[in-house]
């Protein structure tokens, strides 16, 4: 059984449900889902100006995992800006969530009901046991 690392949530969830571009001539060209931990990574690294290694520690994830979350967040925000897409905060009610896991292999998020004994990714093709508890 792998060690369960906790993704500690030390900041408040985003206070918005989304951001919309305005002044653009085009009609809305779709939306981008920004995950809660992606918001958190941007906040810690670019708003609180923390070193990545410290931000990773605060979130309770490895440096490599933090880098992946942060990179994904930046790409999403850049894409939203350039392609005038809305940004939608996913897991806006994160503070109500308990016992959600993330698969570090395929990025799926899932619960594990008490009727399931194995702690692994629910996709058979993945079945990774490299999962982390997101303690929101």
């Amino acid at each position, binding site marked *: 059984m792998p060690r369960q690392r906790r993704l500690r949530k030390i900041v408040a969830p985003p206070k918005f449900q989304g951001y919309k571009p305005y002044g653009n001539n085009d009609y809305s060209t779709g939306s981008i*889902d920004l995950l809660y931990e992606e918001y958190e990574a941007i906040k810690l690294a670019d708003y609180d100006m923390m070193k990545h290694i410290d931000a990773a520690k605060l979130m309770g994830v490895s440096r490599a995992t933090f880098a992946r979350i942060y990179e994904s967040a930046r790409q999403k925000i850049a894409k939203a800006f350039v392609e005038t897409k809305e940004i939608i905060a*996913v*897991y806006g*009610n994160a503070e*109500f*969530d308990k016992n959600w896991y993330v698969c570090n292999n395929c*990025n*799926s*998020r*899932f*619960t*594990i*009901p*008490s*009727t*399931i004994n194995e702690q692994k990714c*629910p*996709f*058979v*093709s*993945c079945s990774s046991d490299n999962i982390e508890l997101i303690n929101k």
Partner: protein
Amino acid sequence: MKTVITSSGKTTDSDFDKRFGRADFFCVFDNETNETSFIENIHKDSSNAAGTKAAEVMVELGVSKVISGDFGPKAKTMLEKFDIQMVIIQGDGVKINDLIKKLS
């Protein structure tokens, strides 16, 4: 074991639907028989509690796992109570076929 995948259409070529309560269809996949069926979500346009009603449908169908893009708080509570595993994927441009392959 039955898994529900939220779907925008009633064939396995359809796009994954990221909404749970307001999904157009529910694709029911049985990994023991390898059969899939599609159920129209009749509650998708109800003004409130679409999520709760969808969760009730899951309980009636006896599914063990639901794959969608997000779940509202009421749906979460209900699915949790009935020990139904919730799976969230980002799934942009993902087809129902792709997800069924990952389950078998």
